[in-house]
């Protein structure tokens, strides 16, 4: 298949330091010109290398209909890449070819003038995005109703709340009909119902066979919306492949954490004279180390530790944190076998099992500790961010998500039983129903 986007050796260098300040005044330019002969003497200095490459040697192709995610740390070059493809900035090296028009949801609300009404701004914004006036006129009702601010459409937008403003701006951009669409963190703003609308729109656009380049810091949004992900680091493409794989790689790299952690040297292993942790890993029922787990399957967190002193009563414990740093839960070993039982010196393997359909999608970080409750409370070791794993959603409809495709909020996502009773008559008072259903 022929690519719709072709990027070859793209590089963007930003001037830094004394050579190319953001802008020069006449005086500085004149001074620089006068100093030029002297500069030449010092030409051996690595002036060029001092400058920052926001993007370097980036090459890839995108086929029509692909939804490609761009991820990476701040300053990795994601936005620069979109800006080059959108022809806002010019690359320093390389070239690109687009076999279709490109539009962007990047500039939500750009060109809106506070003194103009919502309706006037729709036309202005449309013209900026390259939508023809006739086309805009034809789809005006659709745009206005999508924005849900019909009754305020003739008021100046300076009187709008930020939510209304955003809705209106997104509505115009969402009606762009370009073959390639770029999105930069648009889903990060707005309330939940609006975010849902945006995601529905993305799914709709995807269904139309248009190509989408999606930049986001939300790893769960990227894995859900994109089939392919390109990971950028310091301006270079470091990985390009299936979404879950690349996202997981990135999470592991950026946190310097993987699904398994070992301490081969007993001296430096976390712990004290009583106990030392030697290995922690995330495992499946089959015993494999698992960086990714299906949301429906149970996942085990296993800790291997060595007890160095006899007759100690020990309790291993785990804490789970999600991507946002929310403490999802804290658990410790309440199994009957070693509870309140002094342990002989030796090696122990404890596994905590999280049932399937418990955790939400996304990445979880595990903190591993070993404590004593008897005779007094004592913390032997606490190791944060030892291992990480990703809970991925299936699209088969038998998880708690059901038939819903958007972002599901919440720290946990239990699959709970539901009961619905049916009554033929509609004139039963609510209080009676309350009694009937036994609540």
């Amino acid at each position: 298949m022929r690519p719709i986007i072709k990027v070859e050796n793209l590089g963007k260098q930003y001037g830094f330091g004394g050579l190319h300040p953001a802008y020069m005044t006449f005086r500085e330019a004149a001074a620089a010109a006068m100093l030029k002969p002297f500069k030449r003497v010092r030409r051996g200095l690595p002036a060029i290398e001092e400058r920052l490459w926001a993007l370097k040697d980036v090459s890839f192709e995108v086929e029509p209909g692909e939804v490609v995610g761009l991820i990476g740390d701040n300053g990795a070059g994601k936005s620069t890449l979109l800006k080059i493809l959108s022809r806002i900035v010019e690359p320093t090296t390389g070239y690109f070819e687009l076999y279709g028009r490109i539009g962007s949801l990047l500039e939500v609300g750009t060109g809106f003038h506070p003194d103009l009404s919502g309706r006037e701004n729709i036309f202005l914004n449309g013209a900026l995005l390259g939508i023809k006036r006739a086309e805009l006129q034809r789809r005006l009702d659709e745009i206005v109703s999508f924005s849900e601010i019909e009754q305020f459409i003739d008021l100046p937008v300076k009187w709008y709340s930020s939510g209304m403003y955003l809705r209106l701006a997104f509505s115009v951009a969402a009606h762009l009909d370009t073959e390639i669409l770029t999105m930069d963190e648009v889903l990060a703003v707005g309330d939940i119902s609006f975010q849902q609308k945006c995601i529905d729109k993305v799914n709709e656009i995807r269904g139309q066979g248009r190509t989408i380049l999606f930049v986001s810091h939300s790893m769960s949004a990227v894995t859900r919306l994109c089939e392919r992900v390109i990971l950028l680091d310091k301006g270079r493409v470091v990985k390009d492949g299936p979404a879950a794989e690349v996202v997981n790689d990135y999470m592991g790299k950026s946190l310097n954490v993987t699904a398994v952690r070992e301490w081969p040297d007993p001296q430096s292993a976390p712990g004290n004279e009583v106990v030392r942790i030697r290995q922690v890993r995330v495992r499946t029922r089959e015993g494999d180390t698992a960086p990714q787990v299906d949301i429906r399957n149970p996942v085990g967190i296993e800790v291997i530790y060595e007890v160095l002193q006899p007759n100690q009563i020990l309790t291993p414990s785990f804490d789970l944190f999600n991507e946002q740093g929310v403490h999802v839960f804290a658990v410790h070993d309440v199994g009957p076998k070693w509870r309140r039982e002094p342990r002989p010196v030796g090696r122990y393997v404890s596994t905590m099992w999280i049932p399937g359909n418990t955790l939400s999608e996304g990445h979880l970080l595990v903190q591993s500790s070993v404590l004593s409750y008897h005779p007094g409370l004592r913390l032997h070791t606490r190791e944060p961010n030892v291992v990480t794993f990703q809970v991925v959603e299936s699209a088969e409809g038998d998880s708690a998500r059901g038939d819903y495709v958007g972002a599901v909020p919440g720290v946990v996502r239990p699959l709970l039983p539901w009961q619905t009773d049916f009554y033929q008559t509609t004139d039963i008072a609510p209080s009676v129903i309350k009694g009937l259903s036994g609540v």
Partner: protein
Amino acid sequence: MGITGNESVLESAVSKRHTPATRQEHAAHSSLALPENPLIKGGAAGGAWPALNFRELWSYRELLYFLTWRDIKVRYKQTAMGAAWAVVQPFVTMLVFTLFFSIFIGVPSDRIPYPVFVYAGLLPWTFFASSVNNCSGSLVGSSALITKVYFPRMIIPVAAIAAGLVDLAVAAAILVGLVFVYGLSPTWSLLMLAPLVMLTTVLAIGVGLLISALTVRYRDVRHALPFVLQIWMFASPIIYPQSVVPVKWQWVLKLNPLTGVIEGFRSALVGREFDWLSLGLAAAISFSLLIVGALVFRRLERVFADLI
């Protein structure tokens, strides 16, 4: 990152994540007709001078229209007098100039009533000066647009000038009134006003493009401009006729393209002979400035988003 490697990766990604329904859709998209040649090409231009892309400018004419309309609409929002300001400014200036230069000092005016004489100079001058002034800040003021959307950047300063043309048209109403008050009989030369306004516009665009692009690079321009415009005003025969300058030095005055334009305005109004040499020179200089302005603009345009 190898291109060939991606295809196999992509295949597995598609088959892994797509439900049967969407896979079918995906197959349908494969037949999506792509153009033979890229619609958009971009790359490192190095030191080349980019050409003007007239077709693209034309395709963005609606944006020019909307930006002009926005400028006009916003300019007089929340003002009590609205568009009347476009009339008040040159009119009051005309009264003050008439009082001081004609009545008190007695500046000659080539046997044209001084108010008509000075107004015919103020009209193109005000348009030109305010255009250049508005152009100067236009790009920096539109940084939100420039760093976020692609469109031919030239549209921004040109829209600022187009909005000025509307003011010019409103202010010209006074001129019509003055012509009647002083009982000047209109002649066919009045038709020359249209090409004269066009010539002023060409000059304003040329200088405006140059100034707006330079302002992005050197913010000093903003400080220098009011001062330069003030000198330019006195170097144009607005309050005085060309004839007060010694004949020996009149050629210097003629190098100012506004000299030809302003004298042309007066000739058109009172039906006197046009100074074609002066007009031809003004046209040649204006069009040259337009070309230079456009080229410099295109050259600097590429780094606007980086600098702004």
